[in-house]
C-alpha cells in the first residue's frame, strides 16, 4: 500500500514540477523511479513514455480547443519525430540499463544548461504573418489580441525534430525541451503556439516508442498506471502554480536540482 501511495505521490510531484517548468514529467519521473524505487532503467523509461502520453493528450485537448496548436506544423514535424522515436526505442533496447542510465544523466545535464540559457535569452523577434510559410493565428488569452505568424526554416526544425524524437524514444522524455526552442527561436513561432504544438506532438512521439518497450516486456502495469495517473493529476496542479510563481527563480532552482540528480544517477552506475 505504501509503495502504491509512494508511486502515486511521486508521479503527482514530478508531474507538477514538469508542468511548472514546461518540461513534462519524464525528466523528473525517471530519476525518481530509479533512485527511490530502484526500478530498472528500461522500466522507468517505459513508465515515463506512458506518462508523457497522458499529459500530452490531456493538455492537447485544451490547447486544440484554444486554437493555439498549429496542427499542420505539428503533423509535418511528426513525420520526423515518429521516425526518430522508432529508432530511439529500438536502440534503447540494445543498450544495457547502466549505459542507458549514463546517457540519461548526460541528458539531464544538457536540459539543466538549456533551462538556464533559455531563462537568460531575450525573446526572439516574432515573424509577421506576411513572411514564412503555413500562416496561422490564435487569440492570446492573456491580452485578448490576435497573434498572426508564419513558420520559417522548416527543414532545420524538421531535423531537430528527428533528433528530439530519437531522444524521446531512447530516454523516455517528451522531447519538448528541444522542440519548443527549435520552433520558437529557429522557426519564429510565438512561444504559446510553439509550446502548445510541441505538447500536441509529444504524445504521438512517445506512443511511437512505447509499444516497442511494451513488446520487450518493460511495461510494469502497476507502476506505470499509478505513475501515469499521478503525473496526469500533478500536471494540472503545475499549470495552476505556473501562473502564480516567478518563472526565473523556479527555473534556476530546478536546473540545480537536475544537475544534482544527473551526478547522482551517473555515480550510481559507476
Amino acid at each position, binding site marked *: *500500500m505504501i509503495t*502504491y501511495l509512494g508511486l502515486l505521490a511521486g508521479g503527482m510531484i514530478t508531474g507538477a514540477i514538469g508542468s511548472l517548468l514546461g518540461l513534462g514529467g519524464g525528466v523528473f519521473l525517471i530519476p525518481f523511479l530509479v533512485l527511490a524505487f530502484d526500478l530498472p532503467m528500461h522500466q522507468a523509461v517505459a513508465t515515463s513514455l*506512458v506518462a508523457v*502520453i*497522458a499529459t*500530452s*493528450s*490531456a493538455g*492537447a*485537448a*485544451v490547447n*486544440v*480547443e484554444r*486554437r493555439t496548436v498549429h*496542427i*499542420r506544423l505539428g*503533423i*509535418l514535424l*511528426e*513525420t520526423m519525430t*515518429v*521516425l526518430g522515436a*522508432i529508432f530511439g526505442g529500438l536502440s534503447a533496447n540494445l543498450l544495457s540499463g547502466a549505459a542507458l542510465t549514463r546517457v540519461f544523466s548526460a541528458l539531464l545535464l544538457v536540459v539543466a544548461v538549456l533551462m538556464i540559457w533559455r531563462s537568460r535569452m531575450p525573446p526572439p523577434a516574432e515573424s509577421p504573418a506576411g513572411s514564412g510559410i503555413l500562416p496561422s493565428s490564435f487569440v492570446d488569452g492573456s491580452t485578448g489580441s490576435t497573434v498572426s505568424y508564419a513558420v520559417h526554416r522548416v527543414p532545420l526544425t524538421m531535423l531537430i525534430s528527428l533528433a528530439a524524437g530519437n531522444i524521446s524514444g531512447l530516454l523516455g522524455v517528451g522531447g519538448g525541451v528541444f522542440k519548443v526552442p527549435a520552433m520558437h527561436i529557429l522557426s519564429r513561432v510565438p512561444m504559446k503556439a510553439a509550446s502548445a504544438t510541441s505538447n500536441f506532438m509529444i*504524445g*504521438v512521439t*512517445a*506512443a*511511437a516508442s*512505447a*509499444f*516497442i518497450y*511494451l*513488446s520487450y*516486456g518493460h*511495461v*510494469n*502495469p*502497476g507502476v*506505470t*498506471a*499509478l505513475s*501515469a*495517473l499521478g503525473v*496526469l493529476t500533478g500536471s494540472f496542479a503545475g499549470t495552476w502554480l505556473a501562473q502564480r510563481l516567478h518563472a526565473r527563480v523556479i527555473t534556476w532552482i530546478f536546473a540545480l536540482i537536475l544537475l544534482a540528480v544527473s551526478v547522482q544517477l551517473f555515480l550510481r552506475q559507476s
Partner: protein
Amino acid sequence: MTDLPSAEEQQVQWVGGLLRTGVVLSAAVMVAGIVALLAGSTGAMDEGLRRTAAQLLNDLLDPASEQTPLAVLLLYAGLVLLMLTPVLRVLTVAVTFALEKDRRFAFLSLVVLIMLIAEIVFALS
C-alpha cells in the same frame, strides 16, 4: 436552419473530443484496475503484476493457460487504450484534412499513421 461547422471547427471538435475521451476512458479503466488490485490478495497480485504483456496475450488466447488476475487485465487495457489515443488522433486529423480536401496534409497525416501502425504491428508480432 443551423449553420454547419467550418472544416477547421470540425477538426477542433473531433480532435479535442477524441483526446479528452481517450484520457478519461483509459484513466477510468486504470483506476478500476487499481481498485481491483487493492481488493485482491497480495500474493496473487504480485504474481500477476510480474506477467508481461506477451504472457497476458498468451493467457487471453489460450484458455488452458493460467489466467491473469482481473486487476492486471484492467491495468494493461487502460494502458493500451492510453497508448492508442495519440494514434487515433493522427487518424482523426487525416480524416479531417481529407474532408477539407487538403490533400497534402491528409497525405502527411497518413504517412505518420502508417509509420505508427507498422511499428505497432512489428512490436506485437
